[in-house]
């Protein structure tokens, strides 16, 4: 399984966490931030990013505002009150998952 498929499962959590740390971000800025933090190891494609952003917005976790920037309309995403609560829940869920995965990967299985 490629890392992009592994990232896809936790993309919502990544986006919510980034927006918790930064008041508002636009789509391209999110992809660049992830690339910068992970030194290029994680690359989020537009095909994965925008459906996730739109889904989070439709679920009420994100709100949007548009502004003129660099000669075009830019849409910024930010967390709603429900989004702020959801971040904690999602991050905790992912941390538990990673902890259990580490236990599984370190386990040496024996026969008999």
């Amino acid at each position, binding site marked *: 399984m490629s890392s992009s498929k592994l990232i896809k499962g936790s993309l919502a959590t990544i986006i919510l966490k980034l927006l918790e740390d930064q008041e508002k971000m636009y789509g391209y800025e999110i992809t660049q931030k992830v690339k910068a933090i992970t030194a290029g190891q994680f690359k989020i494609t537009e095909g994965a990013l925008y459906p996730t952003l*739109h889904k989070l917005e439709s679920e009420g976790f994100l709100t949007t505002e548009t502004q*003129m920037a660099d000669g*075009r309309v830019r849409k910024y995403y930010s967390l709603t009150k429900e989004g702020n609560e959801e971040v904690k829940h999602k991050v905790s869920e992912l941390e538990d998952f990673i902890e259990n995965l580490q236990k599984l990967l370190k386990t040496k299985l024996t026969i008999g």
Partner: protein
Amino acid sequence: MKLAHYQIDQLKEYISTQSIWYEDVREEILDHVASIVEEKMTEEDVSFVNASAEAFNELDIHKFQRAKLLAEHKAVLKEVLREMKSFLSGTRLIYLATLVSFIGFIFSINADLTQEIWPFAMMGPILLMVYFIAIPTYLRKYRVLYLSYYFSRINGIYLPTMFFSSLITWADDWLLSRPLWCIAITSFYFLYVASGLLIMNRTLKKVKVRAAQY
């Protein structure tokens, strides 16, 4: 390196030839593509034309539009249910109680009167809803039918309302002979309509803010 206005216009022109109907979708695609082009021209030292071609190859803009519409349509139903749920507590509960009491009162006074006002009661909310299509469409500066979030709300709210209204009208004899069922179902119907109208009002305000900005 920031793109010049004529370069952004060229990207805008290309997107407009690609059957991207909704303006908000076009704006988001344009911003993303323009950002990629700026990065490529700065870091990879490629020309505007080559950078644009690569950017459009990377982004499936039709899939983008489809995914956006699907998300918006799903959002509408959830939003209506949230709005309806808000009437079950706080001050809005008083409005709901008033609505149910009024419907019950109409049924209790006179069966003939109920029969008379029944068609108007069903059609009235639909006429109210037409306001949110007719006026903004007439006032062309809002271009509401070119905004995915407005269009999806029209679909998500009006179509079920017309379906419910038709169903209730079709079953009117059955309902009118069962007052309790009739009160419950018509209360639900009017609650759905009221929630839809509140959402459309908020969405229209959002459109007006957007129109004032640009």
